[in-house]
């Protein structure tokens, strides 16, 4: 069920877009939905990030993955446990571009004995990295549909992505990589029993959705083919706020576009927000400098004065002695009361 529902949901979206675009609702699917989707995407994204920024993080809570800054003769793991903004910047860079924390993923298993052992598990890291870079390249290459004239970096990407020159229209390697990587990520959830146990519909849905987007896009390029010139006229029209639909753009295109709109709308309300979240994680973006800088809790009541143990004991010494609690300073020697 956890797998079936998201799968059926994606099929449903495809059916909706097919019927809708065949039934003469092209302007709805080609113009209205894309605008709505991008507004919801940006609005939702900003709202989420601002919401996070409003939550106070009074103390330093970075995940420490190495030796903290200590005595001068103890070597510090300056990127895994950074104490300076420079260290944090490097750490964030490695996290965002190389998914360093996933590289540390471990897999626990029990073998005869029974004994527990931990091994390194790089699947998530490897497939994740492949998937994200292929996705990035594809999205950047799509700028050719929205930008006229073509920006130089799109040309460079297209050149390197297609340099094998296989077939006509020639194959982009990133298309193979993205489909392969999503399939492997999906298989990881399906075949590793412990990962499957913790997987929810919200984990499968984005995988199915993005797989469907990639497959519909590839159908358009390699199988049914779409009128790219007319589609670009619509895409540039959307970007310049003068959208026009010229000719028949094809059902597959509307399916592709509708799935992308769904992805954009779904994005801010789902786990996909890790895109913004990674920058906002206090466990990553804070320097471990608690021993150098005093961090004051912002919601402390300024009227409450610090209450040291010494003054606490002064206040309650009598009761403590009475209850038999050891005290630093004994009660002043008193002549025992006459009984």
């Amino acid at each position, binding site marked *: 069920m956890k797998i079936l529902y998201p799968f059926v949901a994606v099929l449903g979206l495809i059916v909706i877009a097919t019927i809708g675009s065949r039934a003469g609702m092209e302007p709805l699917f080609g113009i209205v939905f894309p605008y709505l989707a991008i507004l919801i995407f940006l609005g939702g*994204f900003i709202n989420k*990030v*601002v919401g996070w920024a409003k*939550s106070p993080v009074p103390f330093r809570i970075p995940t420490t993955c190495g030796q903290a800054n200590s005595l001068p003769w103890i070597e510090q793991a300056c990127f895994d446990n950074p104490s300076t903004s420079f260290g944090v910047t490097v750490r964030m860079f490695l996290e965002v571009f190389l998914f360093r924390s996933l590289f540390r993923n471990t897999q626990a298993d029990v073998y005869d004995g029974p004994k527990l052992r931990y091994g390194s598990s790089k699947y998530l890291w490897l497939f994740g990295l492949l998937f994200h870079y292929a996705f990035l390249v594809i999205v950047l290459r799509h700028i050719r549909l929205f930008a006229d*004239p073509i920006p130089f970096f799109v040309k460079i990407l297209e050149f390197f992505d297609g340099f094998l020159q296989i077939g006509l229209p020639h194959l982009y390697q990133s298309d193979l990589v993205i489909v392969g990587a999503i399939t492997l990520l999906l298989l990881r959830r399906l075949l590793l029993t412990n990962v499957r146990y913790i997987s929810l519909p919200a984990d499968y849905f984005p995988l199915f959705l993005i797989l469907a987007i990639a497959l519909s896009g590839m159908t358009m390029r390699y199988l049914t083919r779409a009128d790219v010139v007319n589609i670009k006229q619509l895409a540039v029209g959307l970007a310049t706020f003068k959208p026009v639909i010229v000719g028949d753009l094809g059902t597959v295109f509307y399916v592709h576009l509708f799935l992308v709109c769904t992805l954009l709308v779904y994005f801010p309300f789902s786990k996909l927000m890790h895109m913004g979240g990674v920058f906002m994680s206090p466990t990553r973006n804070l320097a471990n400098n608690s021993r150098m800088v005093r961090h004051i809790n912002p919601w402390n009541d300024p009227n409450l004065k610090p209450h040291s143990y010494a003054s606490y004991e002064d206040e309650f010494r009598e009761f403590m002695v009475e209850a038999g609690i050891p005290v630093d300073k004994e009660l002043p020697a008193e002549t025992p009361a006459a009984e």
Partner: protein
Amino acid sequence: MYDKGKVLTGLAIFVAIVTFPVWYDLVHAQHVPKLEKPTLSKKCVADIAYMRTSHMVLLDNWRNEVVREEKRKLIDVEGKPYAKSLQMGCMKCHPDRKKFCDECHTYASVDPFCWDCHFQPKKEAN
């Protein structure tokens, strides 16, 4: 909001990247392809919808037929024979690459490498 400056800067960069096509198209002039009409005939080698989307497949098939299978049979358009060829077929009716093929290709950012080897008819040459 905490770290207002940093968060807002980050968000501003994010929005600027997402809306890249909007401001990019704003500062550049657009150019919708204007194709030179062929004069030699009224019809293309296949119907227009197919030609617009799949001419590269047709060229690929032609190439395989001619080069690999020796099927050089001429094709017939409106009773006139044409060679199954890029430079002697397509370019017969669409003589100016710049005003036809490249109009679309520059627009859609496609760069067929065919011209590395295949000639294009040169008007200036004669």
